């Protein structure tokens, strides 16, 4: 089973990196479920004067007839204008890049941002598309194909790792 650093530490690293590039046009958009949990924490620390949103991307995936549509509790919710804005997409784990591809496609149906950046806690270094995170707080070099997921328990975020024998 893989060992990961503490999720809270990685979120702190991520937050410090975001602070370096924050400007008036920045909006933070999380990808449910992990990205939503991170956004909730960032909102507390960075302040609610910034624009926060969610983008789900489920309806833009390329695997409808392979894995079906997953109905998530949290779906897309962007109630501000992203036109010409600096959008920072936030997710817990970056894996194949397909989720991000879908999220970016959906994002463009809301408007044309000036720039889109991707900040994640963990990069599993297994991308199948020419898409990479702008910043990852941790790079996983010995990926065993385990299932990695950010979970919340009593307001504390941690990684749930499951061996699914891939």
């Amino acid at each position, binding site marked *: 089973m893989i060992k990961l650093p503490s999720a809270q530490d990685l979120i702190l690293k991520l937050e410090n990196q975001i602070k370096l590039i924050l400007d008036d046009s920045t909006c933070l958009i999380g990808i449910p479920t992990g990205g939503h949990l991170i956004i909730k924490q960032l909102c507390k620390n960075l302040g609610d004067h910034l624009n926060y949103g969610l983008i789900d991307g489920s309806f833009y995936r390329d695997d409808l007839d392979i*894995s079906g549509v997953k109905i998530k509790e949290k779906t*897309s919710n962007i109630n501000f204008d992203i036109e010409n804005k600096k959008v920072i997409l936030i997710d817990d784990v970056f894996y194949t890049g397909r989720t991000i591809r879908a999220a970016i496609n959906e994002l463009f149906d809301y408007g044309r941002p000036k720039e889109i950046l991707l900040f994640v806690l963990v990069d599993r270094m297994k991308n199948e598309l020419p898409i990479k995170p702008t910043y990852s707080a941790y790079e996983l070099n010995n990926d065993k194909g385990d299932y990695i997921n950010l979970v919340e328990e009593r307001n504390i975020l941690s990684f749930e790792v499951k061996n699914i024998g891939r």
Partner: protein
Amino acid sequence: MADNFQVTKDGKLKHLLSIDGLSKEIIIDIFNMAESFLKIGSRDVKKVPLLRGKTVCNLFFENSTRTRTTFEIAAKRLSADVINLDIPTSSQSKGESILDTVNNLIAMGADIFVVRHGIPKTPEIIAKAVNNDVHIINGGDGNHAHPTQGLLDSFTIRRFKKEFSNLKVAVVGDIKHSRVARSEVCALSTLGVPEIRVVGPDNLMPDDLDNLNLIHFNDLKKGLKDVDVIMMLRLQKERMEDGDIPSEEDYFKQFGLKRDHLRIAHPDAIIMHPGPINRGIEIESEVADCKQSVILSQVTFGIAIRMAVMTMLISKKL
């Protein structure tokens, strides 16, 4: 009980022919997916690429405006291509059988058929004849079923009333000839509505009333007492026989929903109607437009429900 070949062994929706035979879980899945599609309907760009490359064929052997249009909009919002077959001018009028028409359209690459026909179970006959990767949606068959209407009506109730388990619902009008009523009753009882009343004259009640576990009222005022939901039905004049109702004026006097009736029902009761409305026959014009009326919401929600159904048909089982 309809046989259940509209759902595969592993619980995936393959065709939608009637609500009879659908589990509560499948209905709730459809509702939850429709909820996400509602949000898409309020965006500037109202389209998602889920059904890109798929072809939806609207095969309507009976008139329809709302159902056909909302199926067309739903399919287009999912990025599918849509073919509307105008039956009176098609090969049907040259004597081609329905199955031949369907098979020709499959040869042209159709993936989903929405079928409306005056003869009950026509969509089912088609569903049994087509291969595995073609899906049939019943868009209304005779007086048998209109499942997407039943789903969108119960979805509307969920949106306004949240829970089903504490509701009194009255379905008012021509139950006997109404496929909408049958689908509504079936959906509501599957979803656990404890009290479903049917209100209307005795001769517009179905013969199998007792099997359906409904309470019949032939007095509108008594039937509406304390109800949370009033579902009006259209008089199905095209399916009636002479003498089924005395006259439209008399019918309106006895069973038309009027302003005064709203005081009898629960103060927050919602008023529904599947359309098209016959103002002054089933419902007083003013009541159709009042605050408690959710008739136009039903139309909007109908698009989201039809998007959800089409997505579930094409999507792999989770």
